[in-house]
């Protein structure tokens, strides 16, 4: 496949506040960062648009993400903090929501974050437990550290692998059809010039 024919993939990253979603998306790890993310985070990921959901912290706090957020997503990466059992236990509800709102074919992937904290005895959820839960949900799994960069690429690589193995998932969102959305923005200036009022 040539680069141009590669479809744009939409990958969502969701999970409870403080799980490490921003850190996982950022190239630079900032240990001082404690602010909940506000502001759209939409990063092109080599033809994959990675949308970081904490941008809507105001909707995640009470798990009120709207179904429209999941539209057209090829994959959902769910992040929990391996030093917090509470964040791990919340994953079931997050997965339920992703299942019912995203396309039934969408790839689910579970990520345990802050792997570096194991060295200081911070682990509260074992690798086996995380892995077993992911498998029971038919989701992929790995543990990462945004601090040491350990495994940070792996979730994306595996997710893209899984997506391309599901042609029906790509077909349903292929932008090739002429029915794909109309471009309103590019023609925005038309209003002022053409508006009769």
């Amino acid at each position, binding site marked *: 496949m040539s680069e141009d024919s590669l479809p744009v993939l939409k990958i969502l990253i969701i999970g409870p506040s403080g799980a490490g979603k921003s850190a996982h998306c950022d*190239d630079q790890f900032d240990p001082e960062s404690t602010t909940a993310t*506000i*502001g*759209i*985070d*939409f*990063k*092109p*990921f*080599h033809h*994959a648009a*990675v949308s970081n959901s904490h*941008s*809507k*912290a*105001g*909707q995640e*706090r*009470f798990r*009120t993400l*709207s*179904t*429209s*957020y999941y*539209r*057209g997503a090829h994959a959902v990466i769910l992040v929990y903090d391996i030093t917090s059992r509470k964040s791990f236990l919340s994953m079931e509800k997050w997965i339920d929501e992703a299942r*019912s*709102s995203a*396309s*039934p074919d969408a790839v689910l992937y579970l990520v345990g974050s802050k792997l570096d904290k194991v060295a200081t005895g911070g682990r509260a959820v074992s690798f086996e437990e995380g892995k077993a839960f992911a498998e029971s949900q038919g989701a992929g799994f790995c543990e990462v550290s945004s601090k040491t960069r350990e495994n940070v*690429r792996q979730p*994306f*690589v595996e997710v*893209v692998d899984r997506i391309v193995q599901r042609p029906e998932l790509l077909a*349903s969102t292929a932008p090739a*059809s*002429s*029915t*794909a*959305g*109309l*471009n*309103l*923005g590019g*023609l*925005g200036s*038309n*209003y002022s010039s*053409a*508006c*009769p009022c």
Partner: protein
Amino acid sequence: MESLGDEPWDVVICGTGLQQSLLALALSRSNKRILHVDPNDYYGEHEAAFSLQEADSWAATHAGRSTEEDSSVEKRQPIFKNASVWKHPDAADLGLLSPHAYSLALAPQIIHTRSKILEQLVSSQAYRQVVFLAVGSFFVFDAEATDSSPKLARIPSSREDVFATKAIPVKSKRYLMKFLKFVIDHDSEEQKPVWQGQEQKLLSEFLASEFKLDENLQKYILALTLSLDGLITVADGLATIHRHLTSMGVFGPGFCAVYPKWGGSSEIAQVACRAGAVGGGIYMLDTEANVSNSPDGHEISLELSNGISVRTTKLVTSQQDALPDAQTITRLIAVVNSPLKPLFETVVEGAPTPAVAVVVFPGQITENSPIYAFVHSSETGECLIGQSVIYLTTLACRQSAQRLESALDDLLAAATPEGSPAPVSLYKLQYEQTVSAREPLITTREETRTFAFPSPSLSLTFDDGCLGPVKDAWKLVMGDTALETEYMVFQDREGVGDDDDVYDL
């Protein structure tokens, strides 16, 4: 994390209907402390879109019939009533799978390309999260058509189209062209005398007397107005046809209106709420808010159903009570197991494949009001591939439910090529919808303000009239700091469209 009850909120918005959601969008860069709650566990209120399970449970809660016996007491009537669902006994075998994959819209309005809402969605950058699809051809169903002529006649949408069509005799074509030319500048000094003094006359009569349009052409023109009762006046009719014609081509050739993918106005409401959340607003669904004590004039106290109590000086809600004797429509939404391809052909070169087609069943003026069917292809994301969703609407009357059912049957038969198996309905949702008082309800008490939006209009096209109250509510919340030139005009947030961060795989 600070708790919700500590500090007073600048505004509490109840309900996530389109207007409340647009207000949240308008306030999304204001740095106001905004709490946005909805008693429902879904977004969109009167403009929601539902999966099949959600539709089932919504119908169950809106099944209530109006009991005519106890009309003695002033009873509060809801906006929606008489809702019911029907499912084909073999639905699953016939393809009604994964109920979550459906998105049935309570407000499937089409949006004319010149509507102010599109302008606001563009200037506020919210349009980036909405996928807009083209609305294609308008058809008129002719019950009397014989075998030689099709039962579904496409209304010509352009000059070339009028010339090309074989459905209209040459002489009539000339009259029609004359009328279309007139409509384009009917408001000019030159053309005004043609209709002055006749503003309140019926459009159909005017078409016959001034432009010699025969009954057939009158039907075409009336169909384009999408008038619910078919009794549209000359003044309103000319304005509507003018909007239709001048909306052609604004965003591309061959279409005059757009439809937001995945459920129409529901999608706009959700995107607007997301903008509110990105701006720092807190969202809680499934949460009722009741004014807990009579306001002392300085603050409004609200008891949330999750036990938290919050305070604010400004409360924005929506009106839930029907206006007595107001216009009421019956709606029927049907998921059918056919893509109904013939309805979605492009007729103008370079036009996008439409996702919505309009079919009009003209009424007999004095007896039956017209029936309008909006046919949605699976491109709308509202059903599975190989299926379509049909939204039928007519004014409520004793027979309206049956009339919609038989119009649906007629439509399915007419849109199926001969020899192909007749499509069947897999799932149907039917209900009645009416309106609240048409003005916002504003209560002022010393420093506190309560603002209640009217319920959505029944119009089949997006009604720009609902945008005025949104701006009024925005002014009320912003107070002295409201700068009208900045209303809904936002820059992209940082990180959007930023191409530098391309990861290497």
